[in-house]
């Protein structure tokens, strides 16, 4: 198998399986994606969206039921996993419990018939890269979760794979370690200069690490774009919701206003950004709780509301408010009490207007 490729091409990759009632259930519907050498791709979506299935299909651990996978001009979906030469990091790490750290890392080299001394040298190098020197004699059971995670990464990268697949590798770590490991994984990725596909349900992880994010839902791709694009211009309401636009309200389209669009509902008039063409007067407005802020009455895009609940969060508070057009979540600083009237505003650039009613 080649050590480098220019492009990995997923050509309408599909996978369905039989459920207990004998019906075919599609886990992955026509995934089409081109990945360039050196790219860091995040597959983002809620659990059950097909992102892990996609990863397993690429690794060869699950057969496709439709479509093809190409590595430059070589078709690889017909190859067994051991012939594909991709490195994979599993969610539970899947370290071999009966082998030392060094043997775990050297396993892929041993399978490739590389001489013992050479294999040991390269395994040491990989352990150096993940900063685990001094632990090579231990068994995986003697390591902490973070260390096991590093061993899993070292084991996957030591074979110099053309593509590294990571299946929610940080989900079993605590918050502090998770944030440290993000930078670490990103550093290793840059150092190797190979492609990485990273599966996660954590939008922060995807936004902070990936060059491009593939947002998935119910087995289909919703949007493929850069983190900035995904965050600022979610392709549809599903993507917006998943990226933290928790407030979605129904409005009526009034008309265009410069670059923006004017909408109204129950006496509240807002200016927002059109996210698509409009087929009807019924539109949905999406706002992030973080983008709502306290305002003076009468300011642009301001509206009155009443505080329903307060969740104190230290730096700020997450509040639930009742506005004329519906209930909203907002994150505000300063003191706030239940039952209080509050005037909030949302910047027009952070007010996303989608065609149609919210699903």
């Amino acid at each position, binding site marked *: 198998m080649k050590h480098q490729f220019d492009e990995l091409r997923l050509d309408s990759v599909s996978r369905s399986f039989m459920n207990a009632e004998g019906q075919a259930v599609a886990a992955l519907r026509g995934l089409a994606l081109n990945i360039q050498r050196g790219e860091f791709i995040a597959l983002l979506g809620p659990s059950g969206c097909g992102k892990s299935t996609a990863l397993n299909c690429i690794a060869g651990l699950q057969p496709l039921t439709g479509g093809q996978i190409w590595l430059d001009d070589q078709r690889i979906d017909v190859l067994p996993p*051991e012939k594909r030469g991709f490195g994979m990091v*599993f969610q539970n790490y899947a370290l071999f419990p009966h082998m030392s750290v060094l043997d775990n890392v050297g396993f892929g080299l041993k399978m490739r018939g590389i001489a013992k001394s050479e294999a040991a040298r390269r395994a040491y190098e990989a352990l150096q890269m993940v900063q685990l020197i001094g632990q090579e004699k231990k068994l995986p059971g003697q390591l902490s979760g973070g260390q096991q995670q590093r061993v899993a990464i070292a084991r996957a990268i030591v074979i110099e794979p053309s593509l590294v697949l990571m299946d929610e590798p940080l989900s079993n770590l605590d918050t502090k370690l998770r944030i440290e490991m993000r930078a670490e994984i990103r550093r290793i990725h840059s150092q190797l200069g190979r492609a990485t596909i990273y599966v996660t349900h954590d939008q922060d992880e995807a936004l902070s690490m990936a060059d491009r994010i593939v947002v998935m839902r119910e087995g289909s791709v919703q949007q493929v774009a850069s983190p900035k694009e995904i965050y600022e211009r979610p392709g549809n309401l599903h993507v917006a919701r998943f990226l933290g636009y928790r407030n979605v309200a129904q409005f009526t389209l009034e008309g265009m206003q410069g670059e923006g669009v004017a909408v109204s509902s129950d006496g509240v008039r807002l200016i927002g950004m059109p996210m698509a063409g409009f087929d009807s007067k019924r539109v949905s407005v999406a706002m992030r709780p973080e983008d709502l802020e306290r305002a003076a009455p009468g300011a642009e895009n301001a509206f009155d509301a009443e505080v329903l609940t307060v969740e104190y969060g230290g730096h700020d508070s997450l509040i639930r408010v009742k506005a004329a057009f519906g209930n909203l979540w907002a994150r505000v600083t300063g003191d706030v009490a239940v039952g209080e009237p509050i005037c909030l505003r949302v910047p027009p650039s952070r007010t996303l207007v989608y065609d149609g009613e919210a699903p």
Partner: protein
Amino acid sequence: MSSPTLPNAPLPAAVPRDAKAWLVSPALIFILALFVYPFVYGLVLSFQPMNGGSAFANYIAFFTDTAMWPTIIVTLKLAVPATIINVGLSVPVAFALRRNSPYQKFVTTLLVIPVTLGTVLIADGMLTYFGPNGWFSQAVHGLHLYSDEVRLTHNYWGVLISLIVSGFPFAFLLTLSYVTGIDPTLARAAATLGASPWEQFRQIYLPLLMPGLTMAACLSFVQAFSVFPSAVLLGAPAGPTRVISIAAAEAAFESYDYSLASAIAMVMGFVQLLVVAGMLSTRRFFYTGPVTGGKG
């Protein structure tokens, strides 16, 4: 300023002994009465020869009589191959059925049947099925696979087959539980690292299975070594399948020499202990920790 005074409380009385420990006594009496006492009784009896003589007369008699000591060899010749075949066969079958599927349930159910039937019923069935005019021999002749007489009863092979029929399900069920306990992502991880299915088995499954397999082998061996009904019914109890339990039964119920029978039983137990200890001591060469690949 007055220093705080400690209340002048009396020291707590000595804690009464925890009476809950007495709850273990029924189980203890049960074990003593049904296992320890008969064993000690037999051990003492074996040193009191019926016809007088030294305390070791029974043991000397056993190891000098050519109708006695070779029974150890005969029994080992049956028990060792039966153990190897049962455990050896159970590994690939359990491996093939390691994923939860309708097949696994079907085969498991099918194999539980011989365990419940008991050796006598199996022996009776085998006598007709494998007998000179049984279906098996007729099928072999009908298909022209073998023209001579097919003799699989009243000899060594009959007993060995019956040990496999009754012992394999037992070994298989044990092995299956060990195989399904191994995290399947380990083999997948090995696959992504370039291990072929055979290497996945050899490098991952087999080392993790070894402690369980030695345990299964110990239990299978003990079961096979104490073979009695099928050695009498399906074998040639006067010759090639005169196993050690037959020698003990003859001493007890034909010569009425309970003392000698006890000595034979002690020898039998000692040989079993020796083999089991030998097998278990190999466990320290294997990894015996958890068989999952990390957190999660």
